[in-house]
């Protein structure tokens, strides 16, 4: 272990997705000092990897990168990436967080982000930022607009050839780097630990993630992103341009059989958005959305839904019972239409997106701060009729999806209300 680094701030923000970034900025702009701890190598959370965002269809990068840059340039914000919060201790009215900086295996003080190490590294690994649809080097900067621009080495894939160390002009590759402990003292804590999507294996009737052309919505986001893995929409099994694409709604929400009875709030809208983007990039493709109820409840959402219908996207009210595939890896959906009189039928598509729901990204109660979770693991507020941010733990506030699924506009609004007056010392 390296020497203990100590940081003292007004507020600690855990998580740097859009809610964490916005909370930190709003608080710092009010004059408070903030430390952000993020487990991933870059700040930006899920939003930075999205293509465009509903209902305005702004490109997600265009909205996220400047916020990321504002955070990294803010004189009152300290950012720790690739770091985990191991424990938070309450001492009277202050908090002490034990944080570990995970080793990137480079000297961050010396690195000039020249990418030479990445260029010479001979080992390719699947790129998780591209949802496994592309490859990256085993030492590489996580993605183009990542902040900070430090490469991360994955020792489990490294063959110790030493090419990176020889190429580095600053001699900053450290094969034997160890984790570094950090202690952060703060007067308030904001939990913005966000979400994960329900796993591809959540519903056994949907292929358990083994059907190559049944993909996750995050993978579809990357396929649709202008700077995505292929620069166009191709299906994974054979690289063919799909002519018929289907969305399976509520594949991971409103489903008691998988323990997720709640509505995830965002899936209708992201499916409609992706369908609109798909009809832009594949003008002759047939796009069908199989749904239970279309929940376009936010400002401008109903109009967005109506636009999608006018563009010729098919909305079919039907719950998909099962997904299988034919010998050409074309997914086959077993459905029963609620309109029309036919019985159950099987429909073939060339690419299927499972509209997965949202589940908690982290168990916030594990920090031991006196906060409580609801039945589904999301953070409970002490009185949501009176405040949108105050939890049962004194001095502990919550922002964004940690409290339950919500979309980007709702998270941004929500995050602004999280910064509170830290308790006086």
């Amino acid at each position: 272990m390296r020497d203990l680094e100590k940081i003292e701030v007004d507020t600690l923000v855990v998580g740097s997705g859009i809610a964490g970034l916005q909370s930190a900025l709003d608080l710092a702009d009010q004059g408070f000092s903030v430390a952000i701890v993020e487990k991933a190598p870059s700040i930006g959370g899920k939003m930075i990897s999205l293509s465009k965002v509903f209902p305005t269809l702004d490109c997600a990068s265009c909205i996220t990168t400047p916020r990321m840059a504002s955070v990294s340039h803010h004189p009152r914000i300290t950012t720790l990436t690739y770091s985990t919060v191991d424990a938070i201790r309450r001492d009277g009215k202050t908090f002490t967080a034990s944080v570990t900086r995970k080793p990137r295996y480079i000297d961050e003080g010396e690195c000039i982000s020249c990418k030479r190490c990445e260029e010479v590294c001979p080992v390719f690994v699947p790129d998780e930022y591209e949802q496994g649809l592309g490859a990256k080097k085993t030492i590489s900067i996580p993605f183009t607009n990542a902040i900070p621009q430090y490469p991360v080495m994955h020792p489990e894939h490294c063959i110790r050839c030493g090419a990176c160390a020889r190429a580095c002009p600053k001699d900053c590759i450290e094969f034997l780097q160890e984790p570094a402990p950090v202690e952060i003292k703060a007067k308030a804590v904001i939990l913005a630990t966000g979400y994960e999507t329900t796993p591809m294996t959540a519903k056994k009737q949907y292929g358990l993630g083994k059907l190559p052309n049944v993909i996750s919505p995050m993978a579809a986001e990357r396929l649709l992103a202008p700077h995505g893995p292929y620069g166009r929409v191709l299906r994974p099994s054979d690289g063919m341009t799909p002519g018929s694409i289907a969305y399976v709604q509520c594949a991971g929400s409103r489903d008691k059989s998988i323990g997720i009875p709640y509505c995830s709030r965002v899936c209708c809208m992201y499916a409609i958005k992706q369908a609109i983007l798909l009809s832009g990039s594949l003008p002759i493709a047939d796009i069908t959305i199989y749904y239970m109820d279309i929940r376009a409840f936010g400002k401008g959402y109903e109009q967005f839904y109506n636009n999608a219908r006018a563009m010729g996207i098919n909305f079919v009210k039907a719950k998909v019972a099962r997904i299988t595939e034919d010998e050409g890896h074309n997914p086959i959906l077993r459905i029963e239409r609620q309109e029309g009189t036919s019985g159950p039928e099987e429909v073939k598509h060339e690419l299927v997106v499972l509209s997965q729901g949202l589940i908690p990204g982290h168990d916030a109660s594990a920090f031991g701060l006196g906060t409580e979770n609801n039945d589904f693991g999301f953070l409970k507020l002490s009185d949501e009729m009176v405040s949108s941010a105050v939890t049962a733990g004194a001095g502990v506030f919550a922002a964004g999806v940690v409290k339950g699924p919500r979309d980007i506009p709702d998270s941004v609004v929500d995050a602004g209300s999280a910064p509170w007056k830290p308790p006086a010392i």
Partner: protein
Amino acid sequence: MDEKTRDEASKDNFRQEPKVGVYVCHCGGNISDIIDVKAVAAALAKYPGVAVAREYAFMCSSNGQDLIAEDIKNLGVNRTVVAACSPSLHELTFRGVLQRAGVNPYLHEHINIREQASWVHKFDKAGATAKAIKLAQAGVEKVLRKDALNAIRVAAEQRVAVIGGGVAGMRAALSAAGKGLEAVIIEKAPRLGGKLLDLGRMYPSGEEGPAVAKKLEDLVLAEKKITVHTGADIDFVSGFVGNFKVNFKKPDGSSVQVKAGAIVMATGYEHYKPAQGEFGYGEDVNVVTLPEFRALMKNSPAGRLELAGKEIKSLALIHCVGSRQVEGVHKPQADGKINDYCSRVCCSAALYAANELKEKYPGVRVYDVYRDIRTYGMQHEDYYDKASRDGVLFFRHNDTDQPEITSDRTGHTVKVKDVLTWGEELEVKADLIVLVTGMMPADISLIKSQLKLPSSADRFLQEVHLKLRPVELANSGIFVAGTAQYPMDVTEAMASAGTAAAKAAILLAEPDIPLEPFVAVVDEAKCTGCGLCPAECSYDGALMMGEHNGKKVAIVNPALCKGCGACVAVCPTRAINVAGWTLDQFDAMVEAIAKE
């Protein structure tokens, strides 16, 4: 660098010969898939006055910003042109880069080659590239003629005026007070609480509306930094960021003026009122709205749901009345528009009320006629689930097949083309018809017209950007909280109001507020004192005729001028210009674009 050294540095910078840096953004493919960004950078590198021209994947990212900062440091670049997205998105981002690097932030020109070139000329790559080059060259010509400007600073009242004393208004005032600001709530009704005072049991907590209002009211009354005016009749609102004045009459007829640095619009909603005869409303006493039904449920004796002494044994809920309206199917409202938006809260509210009904009067048959059930909140799906289990029968229709209601002596018949039974035309009998009405914004036309506030197509107040600036209005210093912006429930109104207060606190964090320096500037040597310009000015007090150095000239009040340029257009001697947007700059831009 502290502010003083930075100012000195930027002055020095300005005295040096202009060196323009041009930066062409790929926008991650949004631009570079259509426009040959390398060709644009190469063409600009050769343009007179340009010291360096580069292209990069995301100029707005930290790396992109660092490229500019490095060029300022190493190459002495002292003016910049960024050819990228719309300036509304990122002009401020790049001004910030110049500022941090010690160059006056207004020596920057943001050229839009995305919305204005790559997106609109998708099928003409060569044409889009040529256009991008021309636009960037015009940008260079403009930035070469720019002057270093400084923000105008105005003193700000350290006080927030909150218009509306419902839940959003009370939360906004509480949050503002929590941040050390004085807050003044101005409410037209005789007491605080707004719509909550009339609501019964509310989701998700199950508390009665007045009880929730009381909790917030107690907090408000205990807070010394909050002043409350109820029964206030606003007659005049004026001013600008930092210096607003809200004038109103108290119930005793006296007049009060509140001065405030910021305003929070927490003016709320009205229930949609069905048109005369809409599903029989107004013609038949047994057709009521959801709020009326809740009052009826509250006033009925135990064990017997009744209306005007008559027992109700069955009822039908009709969803989306006044919401999700369809052109050609629904009659327009008084202003000629249909309500094509979803009112967000009515599905959950209706099913929550249905559950309450089933609890109190389990024998009443309930039919629910809907298009989509939108119980999106964390616990809301339970309401739907519980209603189904308790025997509420659901009928689903398409948007163009509206249900029909007919009445005779035996009661009402609801006829619906039900999608759930494969489009069968079904008829059910019901004693009572409950119209699940949506929300419309409260009538705030007076304040809207006096402050020139923007509304969106749905008539609610319009935020600057749903994701970037969701609680700010285009009018600097005015914020929106709660249902004045869009239908939302109490928990959502809490978030929106807390954020509105946070933004007001950020604005008022310093005693004076910086304003953009893009205001009219008069060249007194050229001004003939003809008096044409004040007649064109739409902002009271911004431009007036006066005397200076013994000469009659036009005089601008920079704190009031919005930089609209109406005065520039009528000046016969080119004596007025808007700083940062001068006629000479435009002439040079046009020439650069028109040049062969």
